[in-house]
């Protein structure tokens, strides 16, 4: 076992963390900035948790609805882990990590919670509907990218406005915006890490590497669980999951206030 991993586990067992925080304490302050790319995106945001920094942009276009849901628009998410943000990220096709993040954190969290009413995105049934594209980029990875990415995607969505659409000419004017995209719920993803027998949140990069397993839980304000994603090599018992869900609901409330 490596020196750093050993040390982190030793610290956690002694009731401490690398930077002196409590187990269930976020790095402070969590910074959320809206409209960082107001000229080119319909909605945009930047989130910093400690040294971890991510940005997101929302683009909207008009397309044909899927045949099985002719009365609904659609939502697509893509997470790009830029090589500049960590020595471990490579350029090229999306890695397993980036697919996991885009699928579980953004796509599943936001879609399955039904935060955006997809029926309202429909313009003409079976023919035309809005497509919302969420693009998230990592700027710096110092641990806990998943929570930051979940938060930034929501912040960008909250900032997003529909561009002006002319039905007669079938053209979108991206310079003018009409109404805000409405969020019915705010699904906050919280990743709980397990090191030894302890649960902790918002790990640094070293803590992330030393963890045995992690569970990302997305909850809405009424305590509804809308997405879960397990990672890491060791198994979780039922009690583990129960405790982690409790933590996620509790911490979700805290983060929801920041948005």
């Amino acid at each position, binding site marked *: 076992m*490596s*020196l*750093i991993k*050993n*040390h982190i586990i030793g*610290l956690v067992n002694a009731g*401490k963390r*690398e*930077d*002196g925080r409590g187990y269930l304490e976020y790095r402070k302050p969590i910074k959320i900035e809206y409209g960082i790319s107001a000229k080119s995106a319909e909605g945009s945001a930047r989130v910093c948790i400690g040294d971890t920094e991510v940005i997101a942009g929302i683009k909207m276009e008009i397309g044909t609805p899927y045949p099985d849901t002719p009365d609904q628009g659609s939502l697509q998410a893509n997470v790009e882990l830029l090589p500049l943000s960590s020595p471990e990220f490579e350029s090229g096709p999306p890695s397993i990590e980036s697919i996991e993040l885009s699928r579980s954190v953004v796509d599943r969290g936001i879609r399955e919670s039904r935060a955006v009413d997809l029926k309202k995105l429909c313009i003409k049934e079976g023919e035309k509907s809005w497509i919302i594209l969420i693009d998230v980029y990592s700027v710096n990875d110092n641990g806990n990218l998943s929570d930051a990415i979940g938060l930034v995607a929501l912040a960008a969505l909250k900032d997003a406005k529909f561009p002006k659409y002319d039905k007669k000419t079938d053209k979108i004017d991206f310079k003018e915006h009409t109404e805000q995209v409405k969020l019915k719920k705010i699904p906050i993803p919280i990743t709980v890490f397990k090191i030894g027998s302890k649960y902790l949140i918002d790990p640094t990069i070293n803590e992330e590497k030393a963890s045995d397993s992690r569970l990302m839980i997305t909850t809405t304000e009424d305590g509804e669980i809308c997405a879960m994603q397990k990672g890491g090599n060791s198994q979780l018992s039922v009690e583990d999951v129960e405790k982690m869900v409790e933590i996620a609901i509790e911490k979700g409330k805290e983060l929801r206030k920041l948005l």
Partner: protein
Amino acid sequence: MGILAKERDIVVPGEILATGMDFLPAGGAYRDKEDIIASQVGMIQIDNRLVRVVPLSGRYASKRGDTIIGKVTDITFSGWIIDIGCAKDAMLGLKDATSEFIERGADLTQYFNIGDIIVAKIFNVTRVKSADLTTKGPGLMKLTRGRLIDIQSTKVPRVIGKQGSMIMMIKDMTNTRITVGQNGKVHILAQDPEMELIAVEVIKMIEANAHKHGLTEIVKKFLDDKLKGKNISIDKTKAIVLEKKPILKNGEENV
């Protein structure tokens, strides 16, 4: 004639620092006819006749005689490849790693394995700037416990202080054992996690304030403030002893 820049000025490459033969260029500066010109961004230091530009940031460049902390990244037939945070990876040869006899075809992981962190000394820098290391010597060993942090290698002299005054003060006041690698890796071994955190904070503070005058006083005050509220009695009898042990075989922990 004379010196054109002031001590502790920030200069850019191409800036003329001094004219005339009364001065000599040291690191980060060169002579062009009469002039001494900066070759990198940094702060000027004038030491009698020597004019030197100390870089404010940048990668570590290996130098003979430096003690460094590195990570084993690969094992070859003739030794270990060590990542020391330099542009070129360093090499630790079999005969420089241990004084004991290593048989042909022996399993080298019993000495150093991939991922191990070691304290080593650079005894040679080759013409292509790759460093040759040795782990034979006092204080040179494999690290098995403690905290490892990164700082800018250019700030290492300030962390150590004049004749080690700064690092001695931190060690004494926090009762920790600290090894500073010239490549900007710092190893901290503490009895008490709280003291370790303070030591980390102090070192980060020195890194951030490295350009300031009277740093020792600032650090002393910082440490006093930090330690005041803690009320931790430093038990000198339980001082950490970490004498060099022979490298153990067969995966035994060198604790």
